[in-house]
C-alpha cells in the first residue's frame, strides 16, 4: 500500500539530517543543502508514482537530492571538484542512528562553551557561510591557520557532542587548544 502524504513527510523529516549532510558534502553550503532538501521533499510529495515503502522513499530522496546537488555544482561552482559517488557512500556509511534533536541540543551546548575566538571562527565559516579566505582576512590570520583551527574545532566538537549525548555533564570544553 502506498505511503500517505503524512507518512512521506514524517519519513523525510527523519532522514533530513542524513540527506542534508550528504548534500552538504557536495555543495558545501548549509543553506543550499537545505534548499535542495526542500526541493527534494516537494518532488516527493508531487511525484506521480507512489512510494510503497519508507525505504523506497528514503533511497529515492537520497539519490534525487544528490543529483540536485551535482546539478547545482555544475551551474554555480563549475570549477569545484565533487567527491566521488562511491567515496560519498563510504562516508555516509559512518552515519549513526541517533535522533536529531539531542544532537542539535548537544552541539548548541558545546558551542556556548567554547572560547569567543573559536566561536567567531565557526560563526564566520558556518553561520555566515563565508569562504575560508574571507574568514582569514577577517580574523587577521593566514589561510592554512584557518584550516588548522577549523579541523581542530571539528574534532573537539565531536568529542564534546559524544560526551553530552553519553550523559556526561562535565564534558571538557572544546576549542581550548585552538589559539
Amino acid at each position, binding site marked *: 500500500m502506498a505511503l500517505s502524504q503524512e507518512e512521506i513527510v514524517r519519513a523525510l523529516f527523519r532522514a533530513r*539530517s542524513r540527506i*542534508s*549532510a*550528504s548534500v*552538504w*558534502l557536495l555543495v*558545501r553550503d*548549509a*543553506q543550499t*543543502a*537545505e534548499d535542495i532538501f526542500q526541493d527534494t521533499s516537494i518532488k516527493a510529495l508531487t511525484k506521480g508514482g507512489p512510494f510503497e515503502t519508507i525505504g523506497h522513499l528514503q533511497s529515492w530522496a537520497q539519490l534525487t537530492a544528490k543529483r540536485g546537488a551535482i546539478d547545482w555544482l555544475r*551551474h554555480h*561552482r*563549475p*570549477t*569545484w*571538484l565533487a*567527491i*566521488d559517488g562511491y*567515496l560519498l557512500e*563510504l*562516508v*555516509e*556509511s*559512518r*552515519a549513526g542512528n541517533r535522533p536529531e534533536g539531542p*544532537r*542539535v541540543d548537544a*552541539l*548548541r551546548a558545546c*558551542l556556548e562553551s567554547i572560547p569567543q575566538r573559536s566561536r*567567531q571562527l*565557526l*560563526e564566520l565559516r*558556518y*553561520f*555566515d*557561510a563565508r*569562504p*575560508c*579566505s574571507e574568514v582569514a582576512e577577517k580574523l587577521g590570520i593566514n589561510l*592554512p591557520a584557518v*584550516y*588548522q583551527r*577549523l*579541523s581542530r574545532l*571539528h*574534532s573537539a*566538537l*565531536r*568529542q564534546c*557532542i559524544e560526551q553530552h549525548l553519553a550523559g556526561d555533564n562535565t564534558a571538557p570544553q572544546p576549542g581550548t587548544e585552538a589559539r
Partner: protein
Amino acid sequence: MTPEGNEKTSARWTELAMRYLDGRLAPSEVEEFNAGLRDDPAAQAWLWDVAQQATTMGDLARQRTPSEMTWLPSLPVVGMFPNWVQGFLAFALLLATMVATAAVFWPRHNALATIVTVTQVTGDARWTSGGQVRSGVALGDKLAAGTLAVLDETGSLEVQFDDGTSLSLASNSEVVVSADPQKQIHVNEGELFFSVAPQPVGKPMVLHTATADIEVLGTEFAINAQREQTVLKVDRGCVRVRRLADGRTVDVAEKQAIVASLDAATPFRPSSPQSPPTDWQHDITEPVASTSRGEWLPASADDPARIHAVPCLAGRAQEGRAAINYGVVVRGLFGSNSTFVSLTNESVLHLRYRMKTPVAIIAFLCAKIPGGQFGANFEVTIPWQKDAAEPGEWRSADVPLSKCRLLRAGCAQAIDGTELGTLFINSTLFDAGLEISELAITQVSARN
C-alpha cells in the same frame, strides 16, 4: 579525535579535506585526498561528523534571533512601548516581511532576465539554464544567464552583453555566463575570443578556467582553455591572470601571451607569441593529439601510418537532427599559439589519402587573424581522382588554398595573412572509409 594514522599523514589529509570543503582542492591533490578517504574509516567518520556539524550549524543560523547575532546590538523589548507604538511596530514588521519576501522572489525572476544577445552563429549552438534547454540557438536570440556551448567541429557562436562586451566561442567550446553583480564567465573548455568594453570600477569581468582566474577591465584577448592548461593571448589592453596551482598573479600586456598550467613548476610569465611558420606537416607517425580527431593506425608491412576518419558532429539539420560528417580534424596544440600554420596566397594543401567509396573530399579551414580573433571559415573541394591511384589505392592531391571558398567572414575575408586554427578533412555525410597518410600545408606544391 583526528583520523587515525601517523600525525603527519593525518594533518596532511585533514588539510586536504578542509581545502576540499572550501572548494580549493586542486586537481593534483584529488588522488591523495581520495586515497586517504578510501583507506581510512576514521577519516570517513571524521568527514561525516564535519558534515553533520556544518548542517546543524546552518540550522542554528536560521533559528537565530537578531539579539543572538554577535554583530548586531540587542533590540529593545517591544512591550516597553505604548500600544499605538506596538501597533506601528507590528505593521512595520509586516511590511518588512513583505519586502523581504519580494526580495527572495525578485532575484529568482532576475535570474531569468536576459543578459546576452546572439550576434552570430553557425553550426550547432546550445543554451541551457536551470533545466531549460534551447538547441539550435539563432541570430538575435536573447539569452539569460546559463551555459553556452558550440557542440560541433565547424560551428561558432558570438554573443554580446548590453554594454557591448562580446564573447566568441569556437567549435567544441562551452562556457557558463552570468552578470550579477558583475560579469562572470566560467570556461569549461574550448577556444574563445573576448572584446570587453570598459567595466565599472570595482566590478571587472572575471573569467575562471580549470587552471586560472582572469580579471579584465576592458580589452581584447583570446583564450584556449583545456583541463590541464589555459593559454591567454592579449590583443589590446591588459589582463590580470592568477594561476590556480600556486596563486601567482601576472599582468599580461598588449600583444603578449601566457600559459597557466596545473604544474606550478612550469614558467608563468608573459611572452611575445611568434607567428606560426608558413610550412607545416602533420606528424602521422604518432597517435592523434587530444585536441584533434581521428583514429590513428600504426604502420604495417603493407601500409604506412595513417589516420582513419571518424564521425564528427558538423552542425544540425533544419529538423534538428545531428549532421554527422566523417573526417579527420587537426587543431593547434598547446602552447602560446593555438594556430599551427600561417597562410598566404601561395599556400598549398597537400594530401595523400585513400577511400573505399569514390567521393569528393571537403577541406574545411577555420582561420584566425594574428592575436587570436576569428578570421574566417573557408572550404575547398578535392574531387575524386579516378585514374591517379598509387600502389595500395593511395592518391595524392595538391590544392592551392587561393581557390578556397569563403563560408563566413569574421575579421578576414581572404586566406592571405591568416593563421590556421582548425583543419577538417571529411567526406561529408558518407563514411567513405577515408584514410590519410600525409597531410601538409606548404608554400609550393610537394610534387615540385
